């Protein structure tokens, strides 16, 4: 995908210097710089091996762990493209994960002397309910932003505060553990040797990417981000579009919540997806999407998510205390902001 979009911009710009002007050039360079650092300092970083028919290795690990963040960043990209922001992503993650874990649960039943775990509710139903909750959250945000025309940050702040409270209320403040085997597949299963979570991300990315490229949807979103009033006058249903963008963002967050809770085999309403919205926003900005709306890149956001996860992995592997992680992240945000700033420092 990255390659194709690079090619698309390349024909008129054969010189390597012009290639640097491509919007994806900076994020890609940052990622390569990080990987280069890992190549030098972490032995065996690029080693891939097949164990039990599954691919293993640090790279796979990074991509696998980045999956929920990639999903959240996907939804966030579209929201930011319409000049909005959604800070309720973490709360939605907690809510959908909690719903799924509570409904699936898992009780031990002894069948002919063999202990077996049975789900409390059929798993498809539980997953559907969790996604339904996420969609409702998105619809709530959408109505506030598109219908009542509240500032996006305030509108989603409401759910950010209340959502985690709701999740805590559902679980009575306890961590809900799941014992039902099939549920774990979503977060830690493998399909054709590749982590299942990645297939999910790829599928969502493919569908959304096609929708944006092959229909006018991408153009509409861009135009709403650049000038909502002009877009409405030009005949775009601005409110409907914005509403669905928030619904989509919450759906992505809900899916990420399922993935996270399935991966840690429990729902922790207090900590699941904590600060995920901020990481997602960071991933989106790292990918070159402007926070002022209008200009966005799905591929960039994916690279941004990978940069964040690679950074985290590198920090852990280098033996730097994990506490430094937040400081490094802050410095990266400042650096990215500066590089995006319209104001050029006079020499």
């Amino acid at each position, binding site marked *: 995908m990255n390659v194709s979009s690079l090619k698309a911009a390349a024909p008129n710009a054969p010189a390597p210097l012009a290639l640097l002007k491509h919007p994806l050039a900076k994020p890609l360079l940052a990622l390569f710089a990080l990987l280069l650092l890992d190549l030098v300092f972490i032995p065996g970083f690029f080693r891939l091996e097949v164990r039990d028919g599954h691919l293993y290795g640090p790279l796979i690990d990074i991509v696998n762990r980045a999956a929920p963040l990639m999903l959240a960043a996907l939804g966030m990209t579209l929201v930011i493209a319409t000049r909005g*922001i959604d800070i309720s992503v973490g709360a939605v993650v907690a809510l959908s994960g909690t719903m799924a874990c509570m409904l699936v649960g898992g009780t031990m039943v002894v069948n002919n002397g063999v202990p077996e775990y049975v789900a409390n509710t059929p798993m498809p139903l539980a997953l559907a309910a969790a996604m339904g909750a996420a969609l409702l959250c998105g619809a709530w945000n959408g109505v*506030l932003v598109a219908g*009542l*025309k*509240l*500032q996006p*940050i*305030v*509108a989603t*702040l*409401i*759910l*950010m*505060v*209340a*959502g*985690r*409270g*709701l999740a*805590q*209320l559902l679980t*009575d*403040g306890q961590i809900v553990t799941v014992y039902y085997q099939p549920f774990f597949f979503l977060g830690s299963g493998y399909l054709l040797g590749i982590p299942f979570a990645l297939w999910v991300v790829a599928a969502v990315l493919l569908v959304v990417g096609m929708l944006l490229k092959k229909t006018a949807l991408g153009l509409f979103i861009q135009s709403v981000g650049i000038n909502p009033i002009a877009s409405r006058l030009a005949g775009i249903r601005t409110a409907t579009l914005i509403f669905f963008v928030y619904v989509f963002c919450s759906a992505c967050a809900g899916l990420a919540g399922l993935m996270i809770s399935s991966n840690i085999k429990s729902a922790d309403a207090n900590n699941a997806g904590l600060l995920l919205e*901020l990481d997602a*926003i960071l991933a989106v*900005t790292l990918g070159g999407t402007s*926070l*002022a709306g209008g200009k966005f890149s799905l591929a960039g956001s994916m690279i941004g998510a990978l940069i964040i996860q690679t950074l985290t992995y590198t920090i852990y592997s280098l033996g730097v*205390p994990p*506490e*430094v*992680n*937040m*400081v*490094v*992240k*802050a*410095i990266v*945000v*400042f650096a990215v*902001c*500066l590089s995006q*700033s*319209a*104001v050029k420092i006079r020499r």
Partner: protein
Amino acid sequence: MNAILNRPASLTAAPYFTSLVTVLLLAVLLLAGGAAYPGFLSWQVMLNLLIDNAHLLVIAVGMSFVILSGGIDLSVGSVLALATMVAAWLLNVAHWPPLAVIAAVLAMGFAFGAGMGAFIHFFQLQPFIVTLAGMFLARGLCYLISVESITIDNPLFVTMSQTQLGVLGGFISPAAAIALAVLAAGIYVSRRTAFGRAIYAIGGNEQSALMMGLAVGRNKILVYGFSGLCAALGGVLFSFYMLSGYGQHAQGMELDAIAAVVIGGTLLTGGCGYVAGALSGVLVLGTIQTLIAFDGTLSSWWTKIVIGGLLFLFCVVQRLLSSRSQQQ
């Protein structure tokens, strides 16, 4: 006043209308609590609201200024935590005298905030993203100092946490008194000084403020510096309260502060509202918490849900009011 009474429609359009609603809401909450639980309406319970929320009141005053100027500061909770951490470290490890520690912490808070303000002004960045980075940075710095909680046993801090100042038969902590003083200073600065007027002007319309010849940049940097200073002072008060420094103190408090300011009737788009609203906002949040504590059977998570509901209510009311006044 007469004109307002004669035309009931203009009451809802008055700038103090949402603040009035908040005060009414506070009265209703208190009366409901008094009716439901014996002893709820005692003087000391009211004063405890101030004692338990002194730090929140101080950061809400700082946040009021930022929001009035049309910005937002997401870093205050982390700066508060960083202030407790730095204070504890300077006292316990560096063995500084307590007053020097407090001065250093306040200076750090101001510098931190002003630094973010400078980023926002000079590079024309969005306050949201800059203060977000500031939030990461301050929390990260906390953990760099120590991942463990550091106990504070300095005599001055201990005295401050145990002193009781008598007020009409009840008592408040020195921290609460300081918080009220900050509030009073905040109200004075916002209503009576050139700086205060400049903040309202910038929040109302930055372009116009610039064309009027206001020093927009300097005032903006000062506003964020003031918010950082308030957050650091909140941290000092919080360390009087908790007698410890810890990187996880005040997790999510920036949102409580924003909620308090919004519930207090300040318009989030800037330019309209009162610093005094911070007090009613903080008291409403505190009353909800006290109600839930008095009930005893409700999960404490109801606090979050009720705050979310109130935020929703106030945003919608503000929205409806502002759209109506635009039509007129």
